[in-house]
């Protein structure tokens, strides 16, 4: 989490190898399933709001919108259940698994490393620090855009889903409050949910770019780590 701590962990491991096992198997599996679910959700969600060109022929012969919505709802369930599983893993997994849920906001040193990392991205410092898990800036972004974003999308999404299931369904019971919270008009929730999709797309762009860039530029491996679980250090 902090460069100093991670340095210690890295050094301790470095006596034997220059690699640390960071991401455990369930977490890696979750990451890629989640990535797939988000991709499906974004694409199908886009076409639920602005559907594809009209299908010709009898209505009984096609079910295009139905399949698109089905894919969206199925992916949403996978995303939501995966998120619950991820929260569970934060409790039982290693300490890196807790990073995206808890920010050490009271730790001034952590904040200074956030700004250090920011300066690295602004080309103001020559060399980045070494991290076993997420660097503080990455951790902050993951928390704000993924963790908070996921909760937001699950709440607004299942509130809308509850409308289809009907009054009194589990989704309407659990998430119906979202409707009243935004003023009672579900059109508003549709708009805000769609906006959330664009935020997620923007996050994905930055996330993928940062992963590739860090993989090349930083002092440790990034992409292969999410596949094998091992963080390799280059120096």
């Amino acid at each position, binding site marked *: 989490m902090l460069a100093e701590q991670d340095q210690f962990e890295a050094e301790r491991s470095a006596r034997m190898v220059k690699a640390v096992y960071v991401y455990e198997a369930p977490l890696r599996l979750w990451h890629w399933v989640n990535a797939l679910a988000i991709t499906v959700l974004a694409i199908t969600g886009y076409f639920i*709001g*602005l*559907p*594809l*060109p*009209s*299908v*010709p022929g009898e*209505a*009984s*012969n*096609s*079910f*295009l*919108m*139905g399949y*698109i919505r089905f894919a969206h709802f199925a992916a949403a369930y996978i995303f939501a259940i995966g998120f619950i599983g991820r929260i569970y893993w934060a409790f039982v997994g290693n300490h890196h698994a807790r990073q995206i849920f808890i920010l050490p906001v009271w730790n001034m040193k952590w904040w200074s490393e956030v700004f250090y990392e920011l300066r690295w*991205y602004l*080309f103001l410092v020559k060399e980045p620090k070494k991290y076993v898990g997420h660097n503080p800036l990455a951790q902050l972004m993951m928390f704000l855009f993924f963790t908070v974003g996921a909760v937001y999308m699950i709440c607004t999404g299942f509130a809308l889903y509850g*409308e*289809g299931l*009907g*009054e009194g369904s589990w989704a309407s019971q659990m998430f*119906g*409050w979202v*409707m*009243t919270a935004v*003023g*009672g*008009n*579900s*059109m*508003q929730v*549709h*708009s*805000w949910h*769609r*906006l959330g*999709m*664009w*935020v997620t*797309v*923007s996050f994905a*762009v*930055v996330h993928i*770019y940062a992963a590739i*860039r860090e993989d*090349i*530029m930083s002092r440790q491996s990034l992409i292969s780590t999410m596949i094998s679980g091992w963080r390799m250090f280059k120096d």
Partner: protein
Amino acid sequence: MFRRAPAGGVKKTNEGDTPMTDTFYEVLRRQGITRRSFLKFCSLTATSLGLGSAFAPKIAHALETKPRTPVIWLHGLECTCCSESFIRSAHPLTKDVVLSMLSLDYDDTLMAAAGHQAEAILEEVKRKYKGNYILAVEGNPPLNEDGMFCIQSGRPFIEKLKETAADCKAIISWGSCASWGCVQAAKPNPTRATPVHKVIFDKPIIKVPGCPPIAEVMTAVVTYMLTFDKLPELDRQGRPKMFYGQRIHDKCYRRPHFDAGQFVEEWDDDQARMGYCLYKMGCKGPTTYNACSTVRWNDGVSFPIQSGHGCIGCSEDGFWDKGSFYDRVTDIKQFGVEANADKVGGTAAAVVGASVAAHAAVTALARARQKTGIDTPKGED
């Protein structure tokens, strides 16, 4: 099954000491309604309320024995479309019956009395039936300039509303005006038109939104309250579940076209003629809770979607301020500009994408310079 009321109907019951008016049955018979049509009406009402056939005799019994509950119908800032809709109710029965079912003791647009005479009735009902009458409010009170935008009998409407509400049993908010604010509360809401539930806090309020609400829904809500002497079950936002529990979209007869992916793309295209789904034309059916697609309008003749125009969501809160009636992805006002989620979000995503590309380019350049400038002399290989 249907127990006939004693000859001449049940006379004043004298429950407590409150003087009560005639029962519904007495009034109906006096108006020349036969017992046969009265019973038919009871069965129809039971059906429209979604109750089993066993409830028809219960309704009949209630209407035979219960004294009519007096209703005071107030009109605030409004267009009176709720009243126009109400008097066109087809089931339960016709307007005459409905109007006599309610002991509609005060309604400034429908009553014969005027001026001081009318106001005297209001006072009398309030005194005689204290805590026992239903207050139906059509329209809403404007609060700006001390309520001067709606003056009745020389006083701001808000005063009249608060006074009348103080002694009532329950309030029915007729239409979107009383329920949400409707057009007069649309931004910037110059008169500060305010829905009833934001000025009256100590009484149960049933919202029957719509601009106007469906006539049969209005009469059925009243019938339910009179028959069972309790409020209908309400949803989270205070609307009767039996009519506002589902969206237009859930029961729309064009729904199969939606699921199939068959949409009207333009107002005059072939798909429009074939009656495809109006989703792309901005139909608000998927976000509107009302009974239009089941009960329909004007004795079940039609409803907007059946007539080829999308739903505008008139029974939803703030429907005037939620962007165009003809867009599916509508404008969000929170950003100070007229832009929808795609414009705001798409722009943001494009900016992020461009920044990432620029950042990547700068990174590549810096790295190239580093490689040639610093790495080579220092490095050993």
